[in-house]
Structure formats: structure tokens, C-alpha cells
């Protein structure tokens, strides 16, 4: 790892101003992506600004039909939170299959979506549930937030403070885990909103990152059941192909994972 200067911020304002005073700063949340990348010398921030001890970035709030998860809340704290389990159990399940126990103790929802790995789990949940990303400057709809591989709507120095999820009528998430990295070889999040809209998002599948799957949405809209997806054709165009799976394989996984997710959602 190259030299860097470590700062521990105690408030959002302090973190943002430390960022502004540094030449090439990075926020550090759980460190479960940033530190491996720094160790490989693929990133060399002049300063890292630790968000881990900022109280206002911790915790979960359920108010009416909105579940808000603060940005630096760890996967473990999300997975074991009573409000998450009650309001959107599919999110608790998603965190339980994300990484391994040590990653879950440290990694955070804010770090996950800021990073926007094309095989990360949380982007699928945000997109399918129609979540809103809150930053120190504004609110961004999930649709506008994710902008392709490892890229988001965040501006330099903009800090995610929380994610707000509308509580759905039903939701489910299933993923085919990569056996070594545990990232999603393909994962699908299905949701039925309280107003009856159906939204489906797939991660790990597309060359341009997390995506909606309109064909499956249409099938589920008329018939919310796994069998409704049987006849849906998913094109392999634009899907990822690597040594772990061809584009055709991933196209099929989108269907199978969507079917399992619908079963899980009930």
C-alpha cells in the first residue's frame, strides 16, 4: 500500500470538510473494498477519511411505509435489525448471503452502493424497491444513481448519508453465489409495491451493471408466480461472459433466480 494519511471524522460535516482540504481523498467506510484495492496499489488516495465512528451515519429507522438505513450501518447490523426483518425481510436475507461473516461485520450499505460493483447485491435491492439515495447534498432515485460499472451519480466529495426504501407488499432476493468470491454470479431482486407495481432487478448479469428486467416484470404483473416466468425469453445480448459462465448461462440464471425469488417472496 502506498503512503496515505488517516483521518477519523466524527460528523458528516467534518468528513466533508476534511475531504475538501485533501488533494485526493477517499471516504473509508467498512474498508472491505477500498483497502484490498489500496493493498493492490490500484488506488492511492492521499487521505482516507474514516466514516466508521460517525453516529449520524449509523442505524435503521422505520417510519410508516419507509425503511431508512443510514449509510455506515454494517451488513451484520442490517441483517440482525428487527425493523429490517419486519418491514423488508428480503433485505435481511440479502445481507445474510453477502460475503462472509467477517465481511458482514465491517462492510456497509453506503460503501457497497458507492462502489457499485457489477456483481454487488445491494444495487439490485435499491433498483427493484425504487429506493432513494440520500447524500449530504440531495436525494437521488436509485434509477439515476447507478450509472454502469463502478460508476454512480455521486460527485467528487459527495457523501451518502442514508438509503430510504419504500416498504413493499412483497419482495424476494435470490442469488447464485460465486463459489470463491461469493459475489453474485447472478442475483435477482423481485418486488411488488403496495400500489401493485412489479419491479425486478438483476445484478452480476449485465455488462453495464445492475439492470431492470422488463420482460419478467410484465410476466409477474399479470401473474405473480414462479411459473409465470417459465415462458419468458431473456436475451443474452449485453450480458457478461467470462470463465465462470457464458452470457446464455447468465440469461438463464436471471430466470431461475427470479423464480426462486418469487417463491421466497410468497
Amino acid at each position, binding site marked *: 500500500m502506498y503512503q496515505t494519511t488517516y483521518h477519523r471524522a466524527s460528523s458528516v460535516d467534518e468528513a466533508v470538510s476534511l475531504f475538501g482540504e485533501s488533494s485526493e481523498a477517499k471516504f473509508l467506510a467498512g474498508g472491505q473494498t477500498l483497502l484490498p484495492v489500496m493493498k493492490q496499489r490500484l488506488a492511492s488516495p492521499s487521505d482516507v477519511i474514516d466514516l466508521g465512528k460517525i453516529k449520524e451515519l449509523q442505524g435503521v429507522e422505520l417510519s410508516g411505509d419507509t425503511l431508512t438505513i443510514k449509510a455506515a450501518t454494517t451488513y451484520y447490523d442490517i441483517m440482525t435489525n428487527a425493523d429490517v426483518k419486519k418491514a423488508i425481510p428480503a433485505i435481511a436475507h440479502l445481507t445474510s448471503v453477502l460475503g462472509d*461473516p467477517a465481511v458482514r461485520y465491517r462492510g456497509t450499505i453506503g460503501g457497497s452502493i458507492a462502489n457499485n460493483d457489477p456483481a454487488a447485491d445491494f444495487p439490485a435491492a435499491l433498483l427493484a424497491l425504487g429506493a432513494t439515495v440520500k447524500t449530504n447534498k440531495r436525494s437521488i432515485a436509485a434509477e439515476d444513481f447507478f450509472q454502469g460499472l463502478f460508476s454512480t451519480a455521486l460527485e467528487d466529495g459527495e457523501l451518502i448519508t442514508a438509503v430510504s426504501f419504500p416498504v413493499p407488499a412483497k419482495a424476494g432476493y435470490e442469488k447464485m453465489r460465486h463459489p470463491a468470491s461469493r459475489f453474485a454470479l447472478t442475483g435477482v431482486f423481485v418486488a411488488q409495491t403496495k400500489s401493485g407495481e412489479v419491479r425486478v432487478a438483476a445484478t452480476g448479469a449485465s455488462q453495464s451493471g445492475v439492470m431492470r428486467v422488463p420482460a419478467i416484470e410484465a410476466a409477474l404483473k399479470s401473474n405473480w408466480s414462479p411459473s409465470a416466468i417459465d415462458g419468458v425469453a431473456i436475451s443474452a445480448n449485453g450480458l457478461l461472459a467470462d470463465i465462470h459462465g457464458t452470457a446464455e448461462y447468465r440469461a438463464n440464471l436471471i430466470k431461475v433466480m427470479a423464480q426462486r425469488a418469487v417463491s421466497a417472496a410468497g
Partner: protein
Amino acid sequence: MSTVKLTVNGKAVAVDVEDRTLLVQLLRDHLNLTGTHVGCDTSQCGACVVHMDGKAVKSCTMLAGQADGASITTIEGIAKGDELHPMQAAFRDNHGLQCGYCTPGMIMSAIDIVHRYGGQLDEATVRAELEGNICRCTGYHNIVKAVLDAAGRMKVSQAAE
């Protein structure tokens, strides 16, 4: 350089380190606690797992500065004098190690698993929960046996305390 103050195996320490120092480097290179191992560069193997404030974390994937003020327990800190921790004893009795490289991390993760699940552990749970710890020797079978055995012993010793 910064001074990192933390508690390691019950002892308060203050260590001057470069800001880029990882927690595992502080433990191994500055405190000579070489029981914690480094098995990979990718945060995937779990050989470096220690407890921070009671939670099993990868010490290769934390800056030392992030542990400032925390209480760290390493493999060196779990036995009581000559008496092995029940998890260590169970690994020995069940032949849960061969080369021993993964063992410190396995044991620290396994203790965390037992703490989280209490008596509710079964084989499938142990296997799923150990997925962040890689072993190239044992084939995991005896490790899983050891963790289940230790879960029973830890319950008994907790009840006795």
C-alpha cells in the same frame, strides 16, 4: 505517523505506526504477535481473523488506525495460562488441523460463531459460517467436527462460570 492506542489481549498498548499500517501488521510486526497469519492479498482466506470488540474481523482488511480505542483479542489471548481455550482443545482432540496455517483464523472465527449461535449449531450452519476461512489441508471435515464439539464444551464451561 500516528500513535494508535488499543487493548490487545487485555493489555493497553500504544504503538507508533505509519497511517498505511494494517492491523495485522501492527500485531505481527510491532507487537510480535505472529500467531495471526496472512494467507492472501485479497481479503478472502480468513487466516488473519482476530476479534475486535468481540467480533471476528479480518485484520488484513483494517487500518491500524481504525482499531484505535478498540479491544483486540488474538489467538495468543484465548488460553488461560496453560489451559487451552475449549475451541483450541477441540481442534487438537478432533485433529482439526494439519499444517496449522489457517488454524488461528479458523479458531477466532469459530469462537465468534459459537457466541452468535449458542447451542443452536448444526453441521450445515458451521459449514456456511466458515465460508470466509479457507483451509488447504484438512478438507474441513475435522474442523467442522471440532467446532461442534467445542460448542458443547463452551456451553458447559459457560454454565459452570
